[in-house]
């Protein structure tokens, strides 16, 4: 509460320097080595899986789909299969990278979708209240009282998802937290003097929501986005692991572990690598989320 009031009123520092909160946040972020490190790890991961995969595939002459009956369970370190091969003789490094494309895109797109729904519903319910607010709250209560993974399992089983429907499912079921957060913020912003004065000079509700309320939600949105992407990547991996998310032969970090589980003793690296990548990605996203929270915290002193 104190934090949001301070943010809305502007900090002493902001008043002194006349800089916007975002400029200050970026300045703080530049000095936060841990967050910068996490960000660069993420960028490297994204670049290698999207750009590196086709290039490496060309230069090493390996493919993530080609099965080789005579070259199963090659251990990492062999050439040209740098990370070895899996139970069907497919190149493990290539599969990891292409799985990365799938897992990362699912995470980013689904989280963006969830946040968009969450923010729009949150702003609308917070601003108008009344019947819309009641309906949305009822929906949130209903969705939240079913264990989320059960709900996802059912929906995934009913729809037999392609990656696209999976993104839609994760997006359409993942907005409740954001909505509650944004609704709360909007409720407090709505009562600020500048919103009242905007209303007094006849600004339309749409204009108030977009011009006066949304910019104040920027930090909340960015922080939630980082953490949500991490959460969704974990959920997607769990679903795929249970055989209900991304389905083989499309690789994803989650379903690679399902296969690997069967070949515990033959290829330990097959178990370790995909999980490690999920772990690193999610960890970096959480660290970035935390770093952003600190950077945007108006009560922070430099």
């Amino acid at each position, binding site marked *: 509460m104190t934090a949001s009031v301070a943010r809305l009123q502007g900090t002493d520092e902001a008043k002194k320097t006349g800089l916007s909160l975002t400029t200050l946040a970026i300045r703080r972020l530049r000095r936060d080595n841990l967050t910068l490190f996490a960000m660069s790890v993420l960028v490297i991961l994204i670049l290698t899986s999207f750009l590196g995969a086709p290039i490496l595939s060309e230069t090493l002459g390996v493919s993530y789909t080609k099965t080789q009956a005579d070259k199963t369970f090659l251990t990492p370190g062999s050439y040209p299969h740098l990370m070895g091969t899996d139970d069907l003789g497919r190149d493990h490094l290539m599969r990891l990278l292409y799985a990365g494309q799938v897992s990362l895109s699912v995470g980013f797109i689904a989280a963006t979708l969830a946040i968009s729904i969450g923010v729009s519903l949150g702003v609308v319910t917070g601003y108008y209240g009344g019947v819309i607010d009641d309906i949305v709250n009822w929906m949130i209560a209903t969705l*939240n009282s079913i*264990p*989320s993974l*059960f709900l996802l399992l059912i929906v995934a089983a009913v729809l037999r998802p392609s990656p696209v429907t999976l993104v839609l499912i994760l997006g359409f079921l993942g907005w409740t937290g954001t909505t509650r957060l944004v609704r709360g913020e909007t409720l407090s912003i709505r009562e600020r003097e500048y919103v009242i004065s905007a209303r007094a000079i006849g600004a339309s509700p749409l204009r108030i929501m977009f011009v006066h309320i949304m910019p104040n939600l920027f930090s909340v949105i960015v922080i939630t986005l980082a953490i949500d992407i991490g959460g969704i990547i974990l959920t997607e991996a*769990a679903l795929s692991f*249970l055989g209900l998310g991304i389905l083989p032969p499309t690789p994803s970090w989650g379903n690679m572990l399902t296969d690997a589980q069967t070949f515990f003793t033959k290829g330990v690296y097959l178990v370790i690598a995909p*999980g490690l990548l999920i772990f690193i990605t999610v960890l970096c996203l959480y660290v970035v989320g935390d770093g952003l929270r600190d950077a945007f915290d108006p009560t922070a002193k430099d």
Partner: protein
Amino acid sequence: MLGITVLSYLLMYLAPGGPVAALTFSPSTTVAQRERVAAQLGVNDPLPIQYLRWLLGDDWMRWDSNGDGISDGSFLIALDANADGENDPPGNRLGIIRGDFGRSFFYRRPVQDMIGERVAATFELGATSLFIGLLLGVPIGILAAVRKGGWFDNFTRVTSVLFSAIPIFWLGLILILIFGSWLHLLPMGSRCPSTLSGGCPPMWGRLEYLLLPTFVLAAGWVAVLSRYMRASMLDVMSQDYMRTAHSKGLAARVVWFKHGARNAAIPLATFLGPAITGLLSGAAITETIFSWPGLGRFAVEAVTAQDYPVVMTVVIIGAVATILGYVVSDILYAVIDPRIRFD
């Protein structure tokens, strides 16, 4: 609650397969037979009636007042639904309201008969891990708050972020790999040692089976609870009564644990409701990895086998448990904290 039943029923209604396909999955059944089965099951009825049958049963929709096995009165549905010229047998479903969850397509047994042992297995795992989570998480959170910025605080914060970012199914696999496959110290899964008699020793007789799954589930709880407790404790430590207690010259330990921790623990009461949903979600994954015969694994198997009565039962049980959790939370909250009164 009604919302959940409507939602889960709608989802099932839209699902592929369905009861007729499941019961007549044999190439020798003719189209006419299929249709008879369909009519008897009532799948051709309008959706609201099907929903009512599932929720409230159908013994009041078509009844048999003279006891000859052929119905002689009906309400909402036809007396002769399969159109063979004879009145159909009376309805025999009681509806989920009266504990009739239907029959599993896959096992051909009433769902309520199979669910009991699985609820017990999940309860055993869930309660143990929640208990361990509380036992470790709460003191860790308090100590971290008391020594804010110290090495213990930093260490636990880093560990808690690490544990919330780790995929629990991967953690489970790695643990099985290390303790089960390499060191041969612990069993690789299942709830009981497999014996010829088929009996299961009491919990303390098979702790080694409980250890890994409990660790995986409890790790998450310790992470969440310690962070929660730390924030709550920091909040309490800035209160006036804490300063008063310190200035009275009480030992720091007494102030922290008697005055501080008790107040900081109050918000934990609100934790029970969400904790139950979290436990069930976590259980689905953990039970699958460790072949634990519980509710979560049952649900995953049922979803894969398109065994909808089972899936719906598990969802309803989960929802009931969650709502109970929230109610108990609210009551606990009022009991623990005399300042809170519900009007």
